[in-house]
């Protein structure tokens, strides 16, 4: 075969993302060249869409619009809670596990930067998980609403609401990766991240200002936007603050992992 005789071309790239493409392919493979991806497809259809079947929706005296709103609310609540726990659990050992098992030492002895190693995890885990736990259940949800109410959510507002849901997931993903770079116990990583998620359900009752400076307000805001209701004047603050927190966690993860002694 003629092409087999073409000499190998050495990779000569420089910069802070050397090896990123190969790491992305490897991370992608950990989802799709194993049964992990398929397992998550079924898991999230079962958890999110199955839950909607189980709870049963009050028909509201034949008012399908109210029934649709109720379905959207349940979808955002269930998705917001379980998908967030899911992204924490499925990525808790993404960095820490590799540090502890020694695969990070092996990979980072090759020409790949630590930034490429970490950001490939953020990108692939984020995109894949959102696809599996948000996009596919959303498609199924649109079919479910048709079955239940003969109506479908208005796509524009619903997608904006979903964007806030995705923002929350990315926040917790960045937090989990940062914790994985800083801490040395899987229990501590998931404990802190899930603890924060549940704290968000309780603490704002005692400290309302937390809703402004944390992502705790996002699930409710997502539901509001998805059902076409207007947000309050200051609602953009937690949306922006969450983006900033996410960036901060990514920077912390990069900074800490760059100093990791493997």
């Amino acid at each position, binding site marked *: 075969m003629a092409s087999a005789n073409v000499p190998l*071309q050495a*990779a000569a790239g420089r910069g802070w993302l050397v090896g990123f493409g*190969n790491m992305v*392919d490897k991370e992608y493979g950990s989802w799709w060249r194993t049964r992990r991806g398929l397992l998550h497809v079924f898991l999230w259809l079962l958890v999110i869409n199955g839950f909607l079947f189980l709870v049963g929706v009050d028909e509201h005296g034949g008012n399908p619009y109210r029934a649709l709103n109720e379905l959207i609310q349940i979808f955002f609540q269930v998705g917001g809670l379980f998908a967030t726990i899911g992204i924490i659990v499925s990525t808790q050992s993404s960095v820490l596990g590799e540090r502890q*098992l020694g695969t990070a030492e092996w990979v980072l*002895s*090759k020409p790949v930067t630590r930034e490429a190693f970490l950001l490939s995890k953020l990108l692939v885990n984020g995109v894949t998980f959102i696809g599996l736990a948000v996009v596919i259940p959303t498609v199924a949800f649109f079919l479910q609403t048709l079955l239940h109410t003969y109506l479908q959510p208005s796509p524009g507002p619903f997608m904006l609401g979903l964007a806030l849901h995705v923002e929350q997931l990315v926040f917790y993903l960045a937090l989990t990766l940062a914790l994985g770079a800083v801490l040395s116990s899987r229990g501590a990583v998931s404990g802190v991240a899930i603890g924060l998620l549940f704290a968000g359900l309780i603490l704002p009752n005692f400290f309302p200002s937390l809703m402004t400076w944390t992502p705790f307000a996002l699930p409710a805001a997502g539901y509001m936007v998805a059902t076409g209701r207007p947000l309050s004047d200051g609602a953009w603050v937690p949306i922006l603050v969450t983006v900033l927190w996410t960036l901060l966690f990514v920077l912390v993860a990069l900074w800490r992992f760059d100093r990791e*002694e*493997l």
Partner: protein
Amino acid sequence: MVSEPVIRARRLGKSYKNVEALKSLDLEVPSNSIFGFLGPNGAGKTTTIKLLLGLVRPTTGSAEVFGNDIVGDTIGVRRRIGYLPQEPRYYEHMTARETLRFTARFFYKGPSSGIEKRVQETLDLVGLADKADRPIKGFSGGERQRLGIGQAQVNDPDLLILDEPAASLDPMGRRDVLAIMERLRERSTVFYSTHILDDVQRVSDTVAILDLGELVAKAPIGDLLAGSDGIVYTMEVKGDGGAAEKRVESQSWVSKLRVTREAGVARWLVSVTDPAAAESQLLRLLLADEHVAVASFGRRTYELEEVFMNLVEENGDGQR
């Protein structure tokens, strides 16, 4: 022309909290050598290797690999290195072929057919061709080590760093590893750490001994085995050798003669300045005396284990 050393470390040191894992290492590794890096557990061997690879950062000093600084240009360093960790860990869901392909893609951008060809050649080299498409999680320790050697040399490295490459292998596996190392010497430099002194004596041409984070010896293996007391010939002599002793001592190329006697046999240790003269004349000087019989004659050498133990015990006095 003497080529530039592949590795050059100057006062390279590493401390973890209050523990000095490596103290001011000065080291030069010549090109195309098989460089054995010896030391007891905790001597600082793995720390040195990790420093060279940029996996940990030095506390003091600096080092260069192929002239690239290990901190400032760690990617440039790693492009030319193949590394086998002490306990190699891979992604368990991958097969041997996928692992080698993943490794090769850090070094080569294509073409894919060329990468696949290199992967297949490597599988053949390390004897894993028949297990190439099985997940690694089912591999034995020996198979993992073979894969480790494969991934370390899939990029045809200029420098191969092996951390205890034969530690977990049976004698057959060890023999294969040593054969691969000798084959690679033709085009690469091999820098490896080990506890197995027999292997070092068999394949290394230069040896460094590290103990308690300090370099206690570095020399070509021949010099190390010859000992530190110069060129010494040893003989076992029977009979009255008084006159022969005087004849030998009077030679200009003999610097020292020590004779010890035990059970009717005299053991001669003759330190010389000219080994050629000693080899051609020493035995004749003794045999000229008909009352003397020579039971054995040879140049004194040490076993590496003896040298290693002496150096480590000497260095450890008062420190352990």
